């Protein structure tokens, strides 16, 4: 049997183990171990695991995770996020599915200060989900909206994935950031349209018609906000955005350092508003560590597995499928997108980019494709993997941050499914109309 065939079988083994209920990180690392042991012997399999355990997250790319999560949790603990959400809700609640729109909009704004999606997922699970449940939305929809809109964090700059792609393909980071803006707005708009559509056409999906969470519903209407309230509640978030974006574009710090500065700024705002006690700050630190540890352990295990696939020659075999001379551009893109979607079910975003982009870049380059456009297509497609089972990082973070145990991982995946489909729709739009990537061209610039 060819090594790549063993590699393909291993994918099935992982999926089976995960659905049977194995710890996902354990399933990934165990299968990596067995695969490499069969191909290269036990000692090398031991080294593969140990080396990945030590080096796969020891870089600036991952060092920012706790810092952005910390910023998000401070904002959540000090009600900065919730207040901003109230403001968005104030303007949108009369629309059907309005709270869904509020979640998408505030996530789009939050995306401008965070570089990793999981921070947005953690924050809005705390902020938006209880509010939506309270007002009679279906729990599946509530977590689905949060999962779906958390991906905006990686698309709207700053974004770790855009930085990784730019470095890998020798593009300007500024250009990649610029190219993320238009598609970020487009995806937000498609989400909003989709939410309104679902609220009218599939009310059972959007609202808790069966009363499964009736104990959480509150019939009383919330008080209207005065203009002053809007400023008071929305101001801190705006200030934070000004500090972070101003710092990045004013050359004071890098997007990767923004999380730490944002945490500091959020802490000062929280102290100024007297909304954070020493004890709740300590809990925020503990929880930041928890989220970081469980997410990073998954990333470590996914790295082990992506390296095991490399050892088995699976990526090489994959690129052999499409490097034929006569392949049409659209066919190559189709294969590329399908492969990323499949890998996205079990590998983390960064690993997929590291595996796939170098394989396909020369092919796409040879066909004269726009590398910036290619990057945006890649990133949105990779981000769909955050929402798809069995390994969907955004859904895991939401599960980890949910106070209510009645919402299951399966609820989150099924709630996120419509949003994954909408992302796929946006990918199709961008493949069909490449100019959509450049927001300036929308206005003929």
């Amino acid at each position: 049997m060819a090594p790549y065939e063993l590699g393909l079988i291993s994918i099935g083994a992982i999926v089976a183990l995960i659905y049977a209920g194995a710890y996902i990180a354990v399933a990934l690392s165990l299968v990596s171990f067995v695969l490499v042991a069969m191909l290269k012997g036990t000692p090398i399999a031991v080294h593969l695991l140990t080396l990945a355990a030590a080096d796969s997250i020891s870089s600036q790319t991952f060092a920012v995770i706790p810092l952005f999560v910390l910023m998000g949790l401070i904002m959540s603990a000090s009600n900065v996020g919730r207040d901003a959400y109230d403001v968005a809700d104030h303007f949108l609640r009369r629309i059907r599915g309005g709270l869904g729109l509020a979640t998408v909009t505030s996530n789009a704004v939050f995306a401008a200060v965070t570089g990793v999606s999981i921070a947005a997922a953690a924050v809005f699970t705390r902020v938006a989900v209880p509010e939506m449940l309270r007002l009679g939305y279906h729990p599946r929809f509530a977590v689905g909206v949060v999962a779906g809109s958390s991906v905006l964090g990686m698309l709207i700059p700053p974004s770790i994935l855009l930085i990784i792609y730019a470095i890998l393909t020798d593009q300007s980071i500024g250009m990649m950031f610029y190219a993320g803006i238009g598609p970020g707005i487009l995806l937000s708009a498609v989400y909003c349209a989709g939410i309104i559509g679902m609220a009218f056409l599939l009310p059972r999906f959007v609202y808790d018609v069966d009363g499964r969470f009736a104990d959480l519903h509150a019939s009383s209407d919330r008080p209207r906000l005065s203009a002053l309230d809007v400023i008071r509640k929305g101001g801190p978030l705006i200030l934070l955005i000004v500090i972070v974006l101003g710092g990045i574009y004013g050359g004071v710090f890098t997007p990767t350092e923004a999380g730490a500065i944002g945490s500091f700024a959020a802490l000062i705002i929280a102290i100024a508003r007297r909304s954070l006690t020493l004890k709740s700050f300590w809990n925020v630190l503990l929880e930041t560590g928890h989220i970081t540890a469980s997410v990073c352990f998954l990333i470590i295990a996914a790295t082990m597995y992506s390296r095991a696939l490399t050892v088995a020659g699976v990526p090489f075999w994959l690129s052999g499928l499409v490097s034929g001379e006569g392949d049409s551009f659209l066919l190559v893109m189709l294969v590329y997108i399908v492969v990323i979607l499949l890998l996205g079910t079990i590998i983390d975003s960064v690993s997929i980019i590291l595996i796939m982009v170098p394989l396909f870049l020369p092919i796409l380059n040879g066909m004269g494709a726009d590398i910036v456009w290619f990057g945006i297509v890649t990133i949105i497609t990779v981000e769909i993997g955050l929402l798809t089972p069995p390994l969907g990082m955004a859904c895991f973070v939401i599960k980890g941050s949910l106070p209510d145990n009645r919402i299951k991982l399966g609820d989150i995946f099924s709630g996120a499914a419509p949003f994954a489909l909408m992302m796929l729709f946006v990918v199709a739009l961008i493949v069909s109309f490449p100019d959509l990537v450049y927001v300036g061209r929308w206005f003929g610039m």
Partner: protein
Amino acid sequence: QETVDLTVVSGFSPTVAAVKMLQESFIPTVNEELAKTGNYEINWQEAFSGTLATPGGELEAVQTGLADVGVIVTAIHSDKIPLYLIGYVTPFTTTDMVLVHNVVDGLVEKYPAFNETWDKFNQVTLSASGIADNYIVCSAKPIESVDDIDGLKIGGIGPNLRWVEPIGGVGVNANLGNFYNMTQTGVTDAILVWGESVVSLKFYEVCPYYFNANLGGANTYAVNVNKQKWETLPEEVQSALETGAKAYSVAIGEFAATLGERAIETFKENGGTVVQIDEQERLEWAATLPNIAQEWADEMEAQGIPGNDILHDYMSAMREADQPIARQWDEN
């Protein structure tokens, strides 16, 4: 015909010259060598761009046998293979990368300490090579003379940060992967890079002032093979790999020189300003540095390695080749 499987590892992607030249020189040369007799064929497995190891992780990947062949960036392992830092402790000496490669390979042959360095990491080295033919200062702020460097935040790979500290530069640790971004965002005002990288990685977009300080080049890479793997390879394959590694070193040196020459031109075409350092200033700058070469030699001697002799041989070879030496590092 027998087929040999070899996995080649680098944490960098083919946009970086060291990997590009693996694909364009090393692998084809080895294949050609073997095709001469047709006894063996290599089934190459390319594991670049971090698919098997991170940048810097290649050393351990080759050590443990996870990969068979790897390009090790010696400059980022000051703790593990300090002996190979010889180029970084002798700045202002040479700008001829092919010469550096030949001289260092000569030292490796003469002094067993070089090969013994790799023993500890369970690998054999085929050839030492480099890419940084001539370090320059690429700056976002105008630099007319060395005085202008005072107070600038300067990004460098690590060992070379010591070059700029005595003249008031503030060292910031960075690498090829984040130089562009850090300079664009102002975290660094300037970077220590070389002509080829300025062109390949488009640094002229973020730092339009090219201060050609002739800081010189240094050996940066070593092409290594896992020891157990090496011992199982037939002699014919071993010698083909050695030939390939030598060709790689020459190719990378020539690539650096060719693109380096074009760098100034490309720089000007893109609206940049090029300033040549005044020779007197260059001598003064070199004289301001602490004797980092001597510090290095002493540290080697403490480990039982003849650091002073190695340093002396290196500098003698450079003198014989008439290089623009600004400071005789082996004479206090």
